[in-house]
């Protein structure tokens, strides 16, 4: 039976998603898996931007942070329902991406990386400094999510919820890759001039995928806020932006499965490294360099190249 790469990705993810709760013994492990799903959601969105459009966002944690703080601040300051607050966060992120992306993406080259770098840090600075509004560096509480009278709680519940959201996110991302928009993106990634010649509006196409990537990140942020019931400005800091980019690159740019694998590695590794607490940063930096030098195309495409041709196709 021939399985398309798209179905293969979905089936593989579904199998792992369903099997993990039976393999993971403690609720701590389930919590880590939940964190993986959440980070993976942001990485899958960022992968659309990096893998398809060939653009980088070095401030994606800013959008993540907007989503996370939306579910904290919406209910407290505006009296909004958490779900409605999350939606507001998504819209805000999308609009911000639109506002910044529109002039920047007209330019050729990696200007988006520079602009998002600035944008991400500005979001972090606001979250860190507006103590009266956001609680400042100490962070702030997030009210519990209540869906139609059902108080959402427990590690296992959140495991299923975040995994299901990721599943939908992955499915949408895979569909997007094979849509006219996805093909246009791949065309302009290969050659912008050629893409323009065949009638693709290069700036607009990039802008659309940038906004989509920002919304993915904001949704992931909202999930993290609701799951942890606590947010700190750290979710929006520069290091988190770098971690998101690294997830995509380590897993393999352009591979949705790769984004999930990258997210898993970068989320589980620090948990495993807490034993060597003092060495955590050094090891992270060392790993990033090693991966970039020796496995440049990323884990998933790298492994796929090793498999016999037939098995991948």
């Amino acid at each position, binding site marked *: 039976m021939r399985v398309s790469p798209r179905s293969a990705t979905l089936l593989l993810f579904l199998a792992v998603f369903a099997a993990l709760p039976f393999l993971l013994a403690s609720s701590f492990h389930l919590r880590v898996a939940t964190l993986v799903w959440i980070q993976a959601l942001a990485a899958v969105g960022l992968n659309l931007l990096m893998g398809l459009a060939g653009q980088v966002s070095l401030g994606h944690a800013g959008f993540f942070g907007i989503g996370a703080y939306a579910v904290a601040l919406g209910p407290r300051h505006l009296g909004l329902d958490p779900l409605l607050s999350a939606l507001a966060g998504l819209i805000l992120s999308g609009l911000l991406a639109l506002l910044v992306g529109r002039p920047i993406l007209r330019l050729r080259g990696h*200007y988006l990386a520079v*602009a998002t770098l600035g944008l991400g840090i500005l979001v972090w600075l606001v979250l860190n400094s507006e103590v009266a509004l956001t609680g400042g560096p100490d962070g702030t509480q997030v009210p519990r999510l209540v869906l139609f009278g059902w108080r959402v709680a427990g590690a296992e519940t959140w495991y299923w919820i975040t995994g299901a959201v990721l599943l939908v996110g992955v499915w949408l991302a895979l569909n997007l890759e094979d849509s006219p928009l996805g093909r246009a993106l791949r065309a302009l990634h290969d050659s912008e001039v050629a893409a323009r010649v065949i009638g693709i509006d290069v700036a607009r196409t990039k802008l659309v995928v940038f906004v989509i990537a920002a919304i993915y990140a904001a949704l992931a942020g909202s999930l993290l806020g609701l799951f942890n019931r606590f947010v700190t400005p750290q979710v929006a800091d520069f290091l988190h932006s*770098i971690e998101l980019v*690294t997830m995509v690159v380590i897993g393999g740019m352009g591979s949705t499965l790769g984004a999930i694998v990258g997210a898993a590695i970068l989320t589980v590794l620090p948990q495993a490294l807490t034993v060597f607490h*003092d060495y955590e940063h*050094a090891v*992270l*930096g*060392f790993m990033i360099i090693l991966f970039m030098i020796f496995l440049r195309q990323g884990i998933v495409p790298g492994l796929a190249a090793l498999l016999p041709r037939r098995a991948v196709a």
Partner: protein
Amino acid sequence: MDQLLQFVFSGLTVGAVYALVALGFTLIYNASDVINFAQGEFVMLGGMVTVFAHAAGVPLPLAALLAVAVAVATGLALHRLAIEPARGANAVTLIIITIGASILIRGLAQIVFDKQFHRFPSFSGEDPISVLGASILPQSLWVLGGAAVIVAALWLFMERTLLGKAVRATAANRLAARLVGIDTALVLALAFGVSGAIGALAGILVTPITLTSVTVGTLLALKGFAAAMLGGIGNPVGAVAGGLVLGLLEALAAGFISSTYKDAVAFVVIITVLFVLPQGLLGKRAVERV
């Protein structure tokens, strides 16, 4: 009036440091197209190594020399162990490598040193000098003078020496430079070494004023990068101008608007430059051939 002058003094002092970081960026960018986000770590190493060597009883000038040597070695190692093996990789990969390197350097520094803030005594006393109603620290004069000497020395090196001309030729066209017999690998290593030295000197000069810790590198790298963007990336004169302008803007914003958002200035500047003037103050308009 004297308040304004006060802000100008402090702005120029910080700006001189940004200018040196931006200059380091520019050197490496011109020689290799790599945007080196580990640039701030050189500044951190400059300050931290001097602090710890001085505390261990080494006289200050020797400690500073040692710090420069460590930063140069780090720059060369960064080139040899991380950039060189990844030759031919795309821009994003190289950026991530330098970010990885900066995390690694900071992580190692955290193990070797500690997480506290440190300083060592100013070079010529702590008593402020009064100028037209504003006061200026003697160390600020050291920073400004030191930066001026470094910029002048670099300019002389680039314009008057054969090796400097080789660096400029490599920046202009790597393939053509290799064709006329320039060892471009050597030029690249040189760029990383000199960048390390410039960064370390900036760190040594400014530590008595701003203090230092292992975490100062990230923000300095980002601001130095903003300064380079503002001046037009790849243009050394632009880098120095961009650094000074950024320092001034920051000091004025901190003085007249809000000190909380002092750090935001650099990033507002980045975004504004991209919106209005993507090639920077002194950059050339890039024309791409198809």
